[in-house]
């Protein structure tokens, strides 16, 4: 928290001269006041009232017009009982803050600061620098380096430095191939013994669309530190008709190579020789322009040779399947849906049915919605066999860029006799110049 405040103060101070130069400033934020009253069976009622502020600033067209600055973070104060198990009744996080320079050609850009990077094998939050550009003949290159952002609670669980990149090759409209790599130095593998190793991943990815109606997406990742495949993940979609999409997925993960660098090892245990294979498919059909129906099926085959921390047997075949229907009317003013899903756990696992239904209306000025969800378990959990939650929300746009909304939800589930939650939410989105929409 202290660090967060220090970072934010630093960021804001450094922002001031920038603001004076910049042509375009936009700010966005969400303020949330939650009021939760929970009754745990056998305990007294607990009331928590956390106030949370999410806040972001984007300053565009700094200097020669190609430089921009982006900041985002959140902070919270508990106004009643503590909302977490932490010592403090305040918390916060500096999510990102970076400078971005975009070149007028080649989609080239350089980023510096704290940001998220998603490139092939990498999906990381780093304090560092990255650069990307499209090259001639369809090649594209991204490189990044810096220090992985550490977790508040467990500061040793990430490495000292991280670097990586991706090289892609595109054949216009038909094919993209990519190779990527990542190297993170000195990651603690075993907190007990203090054993460290480098995290090293390499991967290949593909996008292939030989015909407009066929699209293949996928990647295979290899763990170079443990010398084994960590993941294959592929998805094929076919659009035989304009209104129909068929899809198939195949995934395979080897825990030894996939969970190697977890800092929650009792749970994501790489020491089991386990693996998970899952495959399945789905279909969506736009019956009429506003009405879409879908069905999906997926089978999971899990093997782990060692049991987990709860000492349960985690092997077997599970199935998930279900259907959903979405109805969108009046130029998206009305959005609604209903769905049924079944998760059928392997023997020894629990199973559940889930039914959900929602509807919302957005007139531009007023917004209202209702959302209900019910889960029925096969085996009782704490002597209950079902859970449900009902959320009602309504809102009013004071200005186009300022929405005030309030939700009330009521929940009954195995852990709670009942829970009543109220949320008051103020969302703003303010831009000096009208530059279209960033979400």
């Amino acid at each position, binding site marked *: 928290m202290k660090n967060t405040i220090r970072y934010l103060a630093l960021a804001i101070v450094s922002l001031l001269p920038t603001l004076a130069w910049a042509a375009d400033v936009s700010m966005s934020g969400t303020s949330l006041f939650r009021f939760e009253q929970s009754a745990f069976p056998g305990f007294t009622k607990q009331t928590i009232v956390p106030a949370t502020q999410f806040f972001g600033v984007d300053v565009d067209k700094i200097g020669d017009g190609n430089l921009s600055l982006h900041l985002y973070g959140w902070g919270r104060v508990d106004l009643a009982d503590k909302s977490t198990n932490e010592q403090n009744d305040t918390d916060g996080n500096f999510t990102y803050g970076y400078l971005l320079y975009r070149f007028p050609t080649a989609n080239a850009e350089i980023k510096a600061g704290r940001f998220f990077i998603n490139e092939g094998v990498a999906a990381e939050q780093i304090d560092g620098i990255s650069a990307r550009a499209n090259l001639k003949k369809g090649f594209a290159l991204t490189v990044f380096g810096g220090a992985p952002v550490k977790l508040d609670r467990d500061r040793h669980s990430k490495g000292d430095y991280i670097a990586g990149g991706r090289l892609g090759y595109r054949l216009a409209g038909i094919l993209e191939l990519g190779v990527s790599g990542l190297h993170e130095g000195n990651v603690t593998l075993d907190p007990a013994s203090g054993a460290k190793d480098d995290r090293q991943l390499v991967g290949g990815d593909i996008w292939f669309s030989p015909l407009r109606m066929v699209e293949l997406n996928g990647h295979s990742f290899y763990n170079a530190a443990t010398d084994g495949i960590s993941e294959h993940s592929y998805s094929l979609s076919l659009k035989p008709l304009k209104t129909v999409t068929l899809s198939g997925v195949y995934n395979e993960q080897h825990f030894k190579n996939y969970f190697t660098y977890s800092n929650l090892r*009792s749970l994501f245990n790489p020491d089991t020789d386990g693996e998970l294979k899952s495959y399945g498919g789905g279909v969506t059909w736009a019956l009429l322009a506003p009405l879409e129906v879908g069905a999906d099926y997926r089978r999971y085959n899990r093997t782990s040779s060692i049991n987990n921390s709860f000492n349960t047997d985690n092997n077997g075949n599970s199935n998930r399947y279900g259907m959903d229907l979405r109805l969108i009317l009046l130029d998206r003013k009305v959005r609604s849906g209903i769905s049924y899903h079944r998760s059928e756990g392997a023997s020894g696992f629990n199973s559940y049915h889930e039914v959900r239904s929602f509807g919302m209306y957005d007139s531009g000025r007023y917004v209202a919605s209702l959302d209900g969800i019910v889960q029925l378990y096969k085996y009782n959990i704490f002597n209950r066999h079902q859970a449900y939650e009902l959320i009602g*929300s309504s809102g009013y746009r004071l200005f186009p860029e300022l929405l005030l*909304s309030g939700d009330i939800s009521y929940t009954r589930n195995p852990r709670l006799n009942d829970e009543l939650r109220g949320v008051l939410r103020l969302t703003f989105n303010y831009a000096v110049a009208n530059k279209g929409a960033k979400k």
Partner: protein
Amino acid sequence: MRGAKLYIPFLLIACILAVTACSHIFSTEASLPAWHPEALGEGRVDCSECHEDQVRGVMKATATFKHSTEFIKQHRFYAARDGLLCSICHASSFCNDCHANQTEMKPPIKLGNRPDRELIHRGDYLTLHMIDGKIDPVSCYRCHGRANNEKCIRCHK
């Protein structure tokens, strides 16, 4: 063994330098705009309502990026490859509602007024996750297990 493994990033960098040098080097095509010029409302976007051609920069048909159910479920493939396109419409903060090292609340609470969004962890997820987590723990590891663990360590030491 450690030393031997270091060859991978070096090989990659060498490879990258070679290709960079060979292709002389940067594309001369104009960059995409910093922001999508047209303001889009809430709800799933269908690019082909307004575009027919290929998207510059990423060289794929615009229809590829139609925000269909399929696209939303598989967005990780697109994000890991064509992030430059996502960022003309999405600020990173949009993604950080679900993806973060440390988040304050689960997305269906923050976005309780958006039942139409494809959000994770609806309903009583503390109970449900015991089943989902057993069926498919790898899907959780995309967001928890190296990051965003604060809520888990209360029960999973």
